[in-house]
C-alpha cells in the first residue's frame, strides 16, 4: 500500500544571497489514517518541509529539489490551478497563530463561506448545512452565537478549533498541522489535539504534525521524525524512538522532555 | 531604509528633481539672475530671449527669476509649516497618549474643534483675523493641520504604551519622560516623517491656493501661487505665464509624493511601520 503523501529528497533554500540551504534532502511519508510527527528545535527546517507540500513556502525561500507525491501523483510540478484546487479540499492546513489567520473585520461565518465558495459550494442552504456540521465536529454544536462572532471575541483555543473546522469542512485526505497548538495553553492544546485525533480516526485522514514538544508527539504520533539543521537525523515508529533513540539530537531532545516530565513524577502526579 | 529606496528609479528621479529645485532655491541669490521684483514696463510680456530665458510677465519682471526665487517662498514656507506641525503635534499627541485621563480628553476635544472646520475656510478665517502675508499664511495652515497629526501621534503612542518593552522599561525604573524620548519617539518618528513628506504637496497647494486668492503672499514677493493669480488675465494671450508656475508646482508636488510613497513602502518592508503601529 503506497502512502498518501510521499516526499523524497526535498530541498529548500533562500532566494536572496547569501544562499542558505534550509532543508537538505528530506524524505518522509504520511499514510492514510496515521499521524506522522516531525519534531525538532526552531530553525530545524520542519515547518518549511511541511509548507512545501501545498506549495505555500513564504517569501524569500524556494524549493529547489525533491519530489512530492500525493495519492501517487506528482504534486511538485503540478499546474498552479490544480494545486489551488487541492488546497483546502484534499490537503488542508492548520497553522500556528490562529489570530493572524482570520480577517478581523469579517465574522466567523464569513470565513466559512469564503472557503466554501472558493471550492464551488453554492446556495445558502448547502453552505449552512456544512457550516453547522463543521462547527459541531469541533465541539461548537451548543454555541450558535459563534457563527456571528468576530475573531477578536474568541479565545486562542476557540479560534484554533474554528480553523480546524474550516480545514475539515471539505473532507481533506491530508491534514497538515504546523505547530498548531504551540500558542495555546495546555487545556486548549489537549482539546485541539483530541479533535484532530478523532477526526483522523473517523475520516481515515492522514495527519502531518509539526511540533517542538515531545509530549505532543507522544500523544499523537504513529511515526516520528526528528529534524535538525535541515536534515532528518532519525525516524521510525514512535515507541521505538522513545525507547531506544540513536542520534545525539534525539537523545538531547528526549532528555529535555524527560526532565520536564520528571518534575511531575517527583511530585507523584505523573501522567 | 534609505539605501533600499535608492534602488528604485522613480526614487532617484524624484530625489534628483528635488535636489535641483532645492539647490536652485538655496543658491538663487548667487545664480546671477535678474531681480525678480524689478518692474520694467517697457519689456512687459516679452518673448524668451538670452536676457530673459522664459520671457517676462505683465510687469516686465523676469519669469525664470521669479520662478526660482518663488520656489524659496513656496518650498520654504511649506517646510516651516511642517516643522511647526510635526513639532507641536508630536508634543501634544504624546502628552495626550501618555498622560491619558483628563489631559487626554481635554486635548482631544480641542483637536475635535480644530478638525471640524474645512481647511481652506478656516485658513481664510485666520488670515482674515490675522491679516495677509506669508507669516500669517504659515500660521493659518499650521492651525488647521496640527490636530490631524496630533491624533495620529496619540494613536501610535497609545498602542506603544502597552507593549512589553515599554512595560519592561517602566519596571526598570525609567522615568516617564525618558520612556517617551527613548522608547516611544524612535518608533514614532519614521511614521510621522512619512506622513509629513506625503503632505508636503498638499501644503504647497494650500500656500499657493491662498496666495492665488490674494490672501497670502503679497506682491511684489514672488511665489508660484501668486504668479498663477497674476497670470489669470492672460490665459488666452500668454498661457505660458500660467503654465510655468503651474508646471513647477505640479513637478515638485509629484516628486514629494513619490518620495513619500517610496518611504512608506520602505517602512512597510522594513517592518518598522508594523512595529510602530502594532
Amino acid at each position: 500500500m503506497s502512502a498518501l503523501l510521499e516526499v523524497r529528497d526535498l530541498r529548500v533554500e533562500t532566494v536572496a544571497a547569501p544562499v542558505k540551504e534550509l532543508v537538505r534532502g528530506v524524505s518522509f511519508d504520511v499514510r492514510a489514517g496515521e499521524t506522522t510527527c516531525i519534531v525538532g528545535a526552531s530553525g530545524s527546517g520542519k515547518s518549511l518541509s511541511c509548507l512545501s507540500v501545498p506549495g505555500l513556502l513564504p517569501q524569500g525561500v524556494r524549493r529547489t529539489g525533491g519530489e512530492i507525491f500525493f495519492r501517487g501523483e506528482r504534486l511538485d510540478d503540478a499546474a498552479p490551478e490544480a494545486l489551488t484546487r487541492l488546497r483546502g479540499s484534499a490537503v488542508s492546513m492548520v497553522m500556528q497563530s490562529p489570530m493572524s489567520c482570520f480577517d478581523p473585520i469579517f465574522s466567523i461565518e464569513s470565513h466559512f463561506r469564503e472557503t466554501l465558495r472558493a471550492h464551488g459550494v453554492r446556495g445558502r442552504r448547502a453552505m449552512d448545512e456544512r457550516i453547522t456540521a463543521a462547527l459541531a465536529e469541533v465541539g461548537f454544536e451548543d454555541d450558535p452565537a459563534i457563527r456571528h462572532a468576530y475573531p477578536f471575541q474568541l479565545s486562542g483555543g476557540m479560534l484554533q478549533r474554528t480553523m480546524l473546522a474550516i480545514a475539515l469542512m471539505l473532507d481533506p485526505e491530508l491534514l497538515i498541522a504546523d505547530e498548531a497548538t504551540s500558542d495555546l495553553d495546555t487545556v486548549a492544546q489537549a482539546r485541539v489535539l483530541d479533535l484532530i485525533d478523532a477526526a483522523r480516526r473517523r475520516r481515515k485522514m492522514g495527519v502531518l504534525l509539526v511540533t517542538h514538544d515531545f509530549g505532543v508527539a507522544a500523544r499523537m504520533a504513529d511515526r516520528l521524525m526528528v529534524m535538525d539543521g535541515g536534515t532528518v537525523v532519525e525516524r521510525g515508529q514512535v515507541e521505538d524512538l522513545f525507547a531506544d533513540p540513536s542520534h545525539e539530537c534525539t537523545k538531547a531532545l528526549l532528555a529535555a522532555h524527560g526532565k520536564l516530565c520528571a518534575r511531575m513524577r517527583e511530585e507523584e502526579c505523573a501522567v | 531604509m534609505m539605501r533600499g529606496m535608492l534602488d528604485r528609479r522613480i526614487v532617484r528621479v524624484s530625489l534628483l528633481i528635488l535636489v535641483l529645485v532645492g539647490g536652485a532655491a538655496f543658491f538663487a541669490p548667487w545664480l546671477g539672475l535678474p531681480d525678480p521684483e524689478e518692474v520694467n514696463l517697457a519689456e512687459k510680456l516679452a518673448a524668451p530671449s538670452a536676457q530673459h530665458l522664459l520671457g517676462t510677465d505683465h510687469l516686465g519682471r523676469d519669469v525664470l527669476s521669479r520662478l526660482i526665487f518663488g520656489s524659496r517662498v513656496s518650498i520654504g514656507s511649506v517646510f516651516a509649516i511642517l516643522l511647526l506641525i510635526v513639532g507641536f503635534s508630536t508634543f501634544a499627541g504624546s502628552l495626550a497618549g501618555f498622560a491619558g485621563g483628563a489631559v487626554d480628553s481635554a486635548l482631544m476635544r480641542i483637536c475635535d474643534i480644530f478638525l471640524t472646520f474645512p481647511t481652506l475656510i478656516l485658513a481664510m478665517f485666520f488670515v482674515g483675523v490675522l491679516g495677509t502675508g506669508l507669516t500669517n499664511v504659515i500660521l493659518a495652515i499650521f492651525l488647521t493641520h496640527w490636530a490631524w497629526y496630533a491624533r495620529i501621534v496619540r494613536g501610535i503612542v497609545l498602542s506603544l504604551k502597552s507593549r512589553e518593552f515599554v512595560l519592561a522599561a517602566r519596571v526598570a525604573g525609567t522615568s516617564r519622560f525618558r520612556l517617551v524620548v527613548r522608547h516611544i519617539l524612535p518608533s514614532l518618528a519614521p511614521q510621522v516623517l512619512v506622513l509629513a513628506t506625503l503632505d508636503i504637496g498638499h501644503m504647497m497647494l494650500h500656500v499657493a491656493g491662498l496666495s492665488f486668492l490674494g490672501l497670502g503672499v503679497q506682491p511684489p514677493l514672488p511665489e508660484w501661487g501668486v504668479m498663477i493669480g497674476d497670470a489669470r488675465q492672460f490665459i488666452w494671450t500668454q498661457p505660458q505665464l500660467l503654465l510655468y508656475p503651474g508646471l513647477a508646482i505640479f513637478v515638485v508636488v509629484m516628486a514629494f509624493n513619490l518620495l513619500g510613497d517610496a518611504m512608506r513602502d520602505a517602512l512597510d518592508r522594513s517592518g518598522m511601520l508594523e512595529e510602530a503601529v502594532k
Partner: protein
Amino acid sequence: MTSLISAREVHRRYRRGGFFRKAEPLHVLRGVDLEIREGEAVGLVGRSGCGKSTLGRIVLGLERPDEGTVLYDGRDVFAADGERFKEYRRNVQVVFQNVQGAVNPRMTAGEIVAEPLRNFLGLSKKEAVERSRPLLEQVGLHGSDADKFPAHFSGGELQRVCIARALAPEPKAVVFDEAVSSLDMLVQARVLDLIRKIRDERGLACLFISHDLRVVAGLCDEVALMADGVIAARERSVAALAASGHPAIKRLLESVPPSRPLHCRERATTDGEPEPLPVHVAAGVSQAAM
C-alpha cells in the same frame, strides 16, 4: 519568613470594547489574595485568560487594582511616595513572555541590561554598559554580546538578556510571566535550569506564572491555582494541589501531554467502531470513492 509582597482583596475590571454594542465589563480579578514571602518561589497556574498576567502586572505596580491593596514590606505600594516607590520597583522585577516584544530593537543588549542600572544606581551610560558584561556572562552569554542588537540573538538568548536585565538591580523578587512559554522545548529546559540556578544562588523570591503544570512542578515552594478570578487553591506542591480535587486543577492535569507514547494506537485498518459521520461528510466520502 517575612512577607515580601502581599496582594489583598484585589479586584480588576476591564471593559471589553464594543463599537456599536455596549461595552461588556469583564470582572477579571474578583478578590484575589496572594502572598509571597522572602526567598519563596510561588507558582501561579491557571488557564490562559484567567487573570494570572493581570495579577502579575498589578503586583509589579504597572496597573492599579480597582479595589484592594498591594503591600510591599508591609506598606501600600500604590500610596507610596517617589522614593518608596522607586525602592519597590527596584526590588520587584519582571521577565515577560513575548521575548521579541520585551526589548527595544534599537538598543544593544548592553544598553538593555544597563537601563535599570542607570535608573536605580545612577550610573552613566558607559559605566552601566560595562557593568552589563559580567551580568550577561552570569546568564550564560558572552560579555561581548553586550554590543549586539536583539536581532542577532535567538529567542532563548534574548530571554537570557531579559533575565540579566531583571537581575541587574539585584531585586528581592522577580515575576516570571509565562517566561518560558514561547520557547521551544530544548531552550525552555536550559532557561529553566538557569532560573533554578539563580534562585538557588541568590535566594530570590519568585512569582512563576504559567499555564503549564510541568514547568511549575519541582521549581516552586508553593503553587497557587487561579480560577474564576480568585485563588481557588494553594498548596505546597502540584501533587497536593491535584489532591485538593478542584475541577480546574483536574482539567489542567488531564491536559498535560503524556511523557511516553500512548499504548493501543488504533491503526487505520483495525479501527473499532467509528463515530457516525455527519451526513454531508458521509455523502462526500462516498462521492470521492466513486
